[in-house]
Structures are given as structure tokens and as C-alpha cells.
């Protein structure tokens, strides 16, 4: 089995690319709509649309979102390479979670911070950009690293739209050798260390956040 390992490396690179491009895009989208959600008053169109979007993403299985991207986009005249269909599907999914992550992080920032920046003569946008977001992003990072683990694993489902990522490459190898179980173990052995790394990073970020907040508590 070890001799097929080199053939899984280019697909592994596809897995990593599709996961991290989606993570990056979802992070930006999440940050933008998450902060809009926190700034604006409860009932406005942006809030309602965002809530609806998050609701769709969180309440439907990812495999359906992937099929939808693959089959519905051509219907509206968007014909993309299957890699970018994968990016869109994963971004669509992950942005739903990222909006929730950034909304939670931003609203966890102490109200006093807003008041202090208001006292300094900042309007809501500059206080958001210079005061609130730098703190909120730090709090978002552990959850975002978790999201990276989730995306790397979820990218295997992109095999259903024939994107040649790690899992699909292994399926193709099975079609020739019929060695199903061996390839299953081999795939797991490749996914495992990568996801382990991202979880480890999430852990470190989590701990760093905690130790910092205790320091602040001590100063208080």
C-alpha cells in the first residue's frame, strides 16, 4: 500500500488548497456580516438576510449544499471548474459558521470598550475597526482553527462531484486494485496528522487567550 502513497500527494494538495481557500473566504465573509449584525439594530434587512442564511446553512446537510452548488450553478449560467465549485460549496457552508463565530466573539467584548471609544470621539465604524475587532479576532481564532479541521474533513465529501481530492483519489485507486479497507486506513492515516495539527493550533490559541484574560483579571 505504501507504494501508492506518492500518488495521493497531489490530491492531498488539492484537499489542503480547497479547505484553506474556503476557510479564508468564509472568515472574511463571516467577519463582515458578523460585525454588521452587531452594529445594526435588531430589525433591519441585513440582519434578517444573514439570520436566514445562517439558518439555511446550519439546518441542511453539507452534501446537499455541495450537490446544490454543482447542479444549480450551471442553471443560472455559472460554469466553473469543479475545484471552484468545491470552494463555493465549502465557503457557503463555512461562512454560516463563521458568521456565528464572529457574532459571538464581537458581542462577548465588554460594553465598556464601546463606551470608552465613544468617549474618545470615535464613531461606531472606527471603534469597530480599531478597538473591537482586534480583540474579537483574537477570540475568534480558536474557533476558526476548529473550523479548519472541520473543512479538511468535510472536503472529502467533494468526492461526490468528482473533484480529485484525497478521498476521490483513493476511490479511484480502489477501482483498480479493489483494496478497499487498505486504502481506507491509508486515507485516515493521511487525514489524521493534518487535522491533528489544526486542532493543536486551536488548542494553543485557546490557552493563549485564557492566560491573557487571567493576566488582565490579576491587573484588575
Amino acid at each position, binding site marked *: 500500500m505504501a507504494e501508492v502513497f506518492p*500518488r495521493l500527494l497531489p490530491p492531498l494538495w488539492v484537499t489542503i488548497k480547497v479547505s484553506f481557500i474556503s476557510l479564508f473566504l468564509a472568515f472574511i465573509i463571516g467577519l463582515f456580516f458578523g460585525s454588521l449584525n452587531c452594529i445594526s439594530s435588531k430589525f433591519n434587512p441585513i440582519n434578517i438576510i444573514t439570520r436566514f442564511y445562517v439558518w439555511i446553512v446550519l439546518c441542511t446537510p453539507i452534501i446537499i449544499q455541495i*450537490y446544490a452548488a*454543482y*447542479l444549480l450553478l*450551471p*442553471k443560472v449560467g455559472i*460554469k466553473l471548474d469543479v475545484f471552484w465549485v468545491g470552494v463555493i460549496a465549502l465557503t457557503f457552508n463555512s461562512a454560516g459558521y463563521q458568521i456565528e463565530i464572529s457574532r459571538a466573539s464581537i458581542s462577548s467584548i465588554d460594553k465598556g470598550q464601546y463606551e470608552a471609544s465613544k468617549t474618545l470621539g470615535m464613531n461606531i465604524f472606527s471603534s469597530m475597526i480599531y478597538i473591537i475587532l482586534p480583540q474579537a479576532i483574537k477570540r475568534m481564532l480558536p474557533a476558526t482553527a476548529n473550523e479548519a479541521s472541520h473543512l479538511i474533513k468535510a472536503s472529502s465529501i467533494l468526492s*461526490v*462531484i*468528482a473533484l*480529485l481530492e484525497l478521498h476521490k483519489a483513493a*476511490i*479511484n*485507486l*480502489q*477501482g*483498480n486494485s*479493489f483494496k*478497499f*479497507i487498505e486504502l481506507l486506513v491509508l486515507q485516515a492515516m493521511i487525514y489524521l496528522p493534518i487535522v491533528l495539527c489544526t486542532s493543536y493550533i486551536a488548542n494553543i490559541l485557546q490557552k493563549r487567550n485564557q492566560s491573557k484574560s487571567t493576566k488582565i483579571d490579576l491587573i484588575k
Partner: protein
Amino acid sequence: MKTISLIIALLFSGSVFAGALDDVKSAGKFVFGLEVGYKPFEYMDDSGKLVGYDIDVSKEIGRRLGVEAVHQDTNWSTVIQTMYDGGFDLILGGMTATEKRFQKVNFSIPYMNAASGIIVMKDSGISDRSDLDGKKVSAGAGTPQLDQLKMSADELNISYDGDTKSYDSDAVAYEAMRSKRIDAYASTMVSLLEFAKTDDNFTVLSFASDKWSQEWTSMAFTKEDDDLRMAFDDAIRAMKSDGTLAKIQENWFGQSFVDALPDTSPTW
């Protein structure tokens, strides 16, 4: 007035029909859809190259039309939808011509025999499709064998153990049979024989009945692209008469099926 509009409509539709072949010729290539992992029709060989009967046939047709043959891997259960969405010009992926599929696509003249078979473990005691009574049966997702299992049960008045399971990949089905989750798996004869070669514990039985017609492997085209289909039909006919198709079949299946292939495309 009516005649004029009819003529205009005919002219217009004529130009649409002429489109697909011209498009292929001007692009210098045709793109065909398939799903990798259907040995010996299309699979990755040990060096990671896509090879198989379909690949050789497509190259030969490309050579005859003077264009390049480009394959596009896709999901088999949505393959027709993806062709209509513009993913590829035709399906050339070991597709069995069936009445259900014919409602959506037009078929080329057959280029391979697609007789169904059942694979079972040698020690299962199953030697005929009537032995499937009370057994766990399965077939590939979106394949005609799924329907045939049902027809077979109705015809022989037998019932299977539980629902007929459908698998996305043949390799998973074989593994499921090794672990006794299923007793029998129906697919095309040639692909089952290919697997049985690698494992002595399996044996392949014929799965034929008057309830379903003799089956053929054809290429599938959209209903609009009939000019492209006819160009492919001509190429297949030429390959049949000059022995090229027989040679490719002997290379991949160990024998030639050309003499039994009908010369007209399957319709219903």
C-alpha cells in the same frame, strides 16, 4: 404566413442541429463524461494514468473525426444532468442503454455488450437468480441492474431480505460482500468478471431474463445533438467493419463482441 414561419423555424432548428458537430470540429476536441473506477472501461492504472476500453474507443473516434478526445470525470448518478448543463458533449462511460435513460438522451449504435451479471461468494450456494430468494441483494446506484433485481423478483415470485441496497462504488459492494453484509451484487458481466479475476472466492452468474431486453453499451448524447451522434455512429460503424473495435475489445475483454452488436441505435 404559416409556411414562411415554418420554413424559418426549420432553418433555425437546422442550424441548431448543425451546431454540436461544428462546435466540436472548431474546438478541435470533444469532451466526454465518465466516472473513473469502472474497470475495465475506465480506471487509473498503476502509474496513475486513466486507461480502459472507453478511453481507447474515444481516442480512436477522435482520430477518425480529426479531433482530440478529452475525458471529464463526474458523478455517475447525475451524469445526464451534468451533460445538459454543459459539462461535456457526450457520455462515453460504459453506459447501458435503457428505456428510462432514453427519455432524456439519444444513444449511439452499441459499441459493447452490456449483459448483466450477478456476483456471489462461491460458498453462498447461489447458482441461479431464483436462488436469491430471501437473500440480501444490491446493485450500483443509478444502474439498470437495480430495476432488474426488482423485475426478477416479481417474475420469479421471490422476495429478497430487506430492501435492495445501492452502492456508489463497486469496490465498496465487494467489500460489503466479503463482510457478509450482502449476498449478491448485480452489475454488468464484464466489470464483475474483471473483479472475480482478482479474488478466487467470488463467482459470476448470468443475470438474464425475457423481462428486460438484451442490453447494450452505447454513448449518450443530448436530444438536440443528433448531428454529433450520427458522426459518432459513422465512426463506430467504420471501426466495426475494419476490425479496429474487435481489436480494442480483445485487448480489454479477452474476446470480441462485435459480431453480436446490432447496427441500429437502441430506441424505445
